[in-house]
């Protein structure tokens, strides 16, 4: 497992003198000054959270189910991964499912693929789900070339990506994303290639508004409800370490976070369509301002699994999507958490589904 010490420095640059270590200390300092003793300490792994019984020994802040690495060998019975702990061998359950651009047999996975796998039992050796070379692009379309190539801006923190939609999948994607034009939002899941994503699955329905004009948020009566319900999605690691356990939070304190980084002046025609999510309002779900290092308790309402997660990055692009997740019932409107891939899988999410209905408690 990776901890808060892995958090990159690109977010929250104010008084940024001590590096990521200071983010890891924040929970301890907060607990000390507010006199609270019951907050999870991110430096202590394997704190039990009282999760549902069907998951057996459930763990609060550690990766108990999820492993990431590069595939060294794959057969119908065994998967060999190169992880940050060295070479690891995982027996596959009889019902093991693999995804590589679609459902495939585990033996069809390729040497060198980046994979994220889920164990059948927490900490156990047997694996039952494998995703290989899965990627996702979420943001504003800023350029379109020809019928199927898009340049997508994922916001100031994540940069830009190229999405290619093949003729075979164009129909499926355009049913949910009818406006593949600059200025509109896109969120697609697909197969990662060198330099681009081959879009295969629409991760949501396209919001009808332009990215720079999301609807005004509903007003809050009294205080923000705690816990708050909504949609949890996932994002590719980008500059984050592979296997980072955390989430990008849509409402980092604007006074001390990456919102303070001024947008670069337009240098190409696509820049004119790029949208700074910080400039479009708070999004359609109002969340209390937090900071990198804040701890949250997130529950996957579809599986009942609960984890304590640190905020590890800036998820302002999530504010642009006023959508709902319908993985299990219809979620409250709006994205409340943009999880790292490891955290998403750890909480029981299926990467190809793209979201799950979630309940988040601030401060654990």
């Amino acid at each position, binding site marked *: 497992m990776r901890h808060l010490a892995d958090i990159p420095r690109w977010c929250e640059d104010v008084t940024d003198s001590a590096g990521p270590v200071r983010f890891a200390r924040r929970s301890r*300092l907060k607990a000390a000054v507010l006199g609270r003793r019951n907050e999870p300490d991110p430096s202590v792994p394997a704190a039990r959270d009282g999760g549902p019984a069907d998951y057996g020994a459930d763990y609060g802040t550690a990766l108990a189910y999820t492993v990431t690495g590069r595939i060294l060998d794959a057969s119908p019975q065994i998967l060999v991964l190169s992880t940050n702990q060295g070479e690891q061998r995982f027996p596959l359950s009889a019902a093991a499912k693999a995804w590589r651009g679609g459902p495939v047999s585990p033996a069809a996975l390729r040497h060198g693929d980046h994979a994220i796998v889920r164990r059948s039992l927490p900490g156990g050796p047997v694996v039952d789900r494998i995703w290989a070379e899965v990627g996702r692009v979420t943001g504003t379309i800023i350029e379109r070339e020809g019928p199927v190539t898009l340049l997508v801006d994922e916001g100031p923190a994540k940069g830009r990506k190229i999405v290619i939609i093949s003729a075979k999948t164009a129909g499926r994607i355009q049913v949910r994303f009818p406006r593949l034009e600059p200025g509109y939002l896109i969120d697609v899941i697909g197969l990662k290639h060198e330099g681009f994503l081959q879009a295969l699955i629409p991760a949501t329905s396209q919001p009808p508004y332009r990215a720079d004009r999301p*609807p*005004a948020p509903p007003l809050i009566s009294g205080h923000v409800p705690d816990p708050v319900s909504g949609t949890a999605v996932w994002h590719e690691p980008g500059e984050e370490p592979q296997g980072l356990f955390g989430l990008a939070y849509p409402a980092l304190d604007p006074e*001390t976070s990456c919102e303070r980084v001024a947008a670069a002046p337009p240098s190409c025609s696509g820049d004119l369509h790029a949208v700074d999510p910080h400039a479009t309002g708070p999004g359609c779900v109002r969340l209390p301002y937090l900071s990198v290092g804040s701890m949250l308790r997130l529950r996957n309402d579809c599986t009942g699994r609960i984890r304590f997660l640190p905020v590890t990055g800036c998820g302002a692009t999530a504010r642009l999507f006023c959508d709902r997740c319908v993985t299990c019932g219809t979620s409250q409107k709006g994205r409340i958490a943009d999880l790292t891939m490891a955290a998403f899988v750890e909480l029981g999410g299926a990467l190809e589904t793209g979201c799950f209905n979630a309940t988040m408690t601030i401060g654990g």
Partner: protein
Amino acid sequence: MLLAIRELQIPVLAAMLIGGCAAKAWQAWRSRSVAAGMGATGLFPLRLRRPVMIATFVTEFGLGLGLVATGGQAGTALPAASVRTATAIFFLIAVGTLQEARQRRPEVGCGCFGELSETPIGLRTVIRSGLLCVAAVATIGTPRVRMPASSTQAELWLALLAAEVTLMAFLSPELGEILVRLGYSEPCELRRLPVGRTLAALHTSSQWRRYAGQVTAPTPADVWREGCWRFVVYPGLAHGRRVDIVFAVYLQARRPPIRAAVLDQATNEVIGQPEPVSLPLSR
């Protein structure tokens, strides 16, 4: 009494239609997009959504004005009967569309009253349209609307109107949104507050005076926020040990509560126990 109920439906229907129209126009103006209040028009192919939205808007507005303009005519007159029949058909189509949207797009609101109608379409919304359809049918053939002849009749009308408004309010998920907007004041966890103001409040506090002698740097080593609290950390020296002095400042404009704690930098031992805080994180 039955006649009074039927006569009452004309102003109620006109108010609902023109109110819905005004709410949609307000949303379109604010978002500079007709499609922003798409609602149930999301059932249509993309190229038809904008025309359908405009057609709905124009129809609502036309029917609302038509009901008002023909209110003085008997319900048997051709213009009044036409408008009222068209209103009944409009709400009948609305019932079917809402039911279809509820099944096929369970996540979208009906958009009936613009951005107030973003709650997913429920049975209440469908029943509301059904009742309005029945109300429109009831107005066909009524005599011309006139002022009440006596105070007793006026009281009866008012009582019936109150009952109908209550029923409509019960069937309208928009009511909760309206009530929230009327009594709104931004809670502290959503309020932007510059770091400079937090530091100014801290530096004039008794907690700062108590620990200022131990602080060894002019600027904080870390500043972050969680909900209604902003945390400020200064490096310091206490009893010859390197320490972190952490202040928690509650984000309110006047006399914010401030807490402080001192931690050994090497061992994380808390030197002196701060009082537990009764104010929750987001309150």
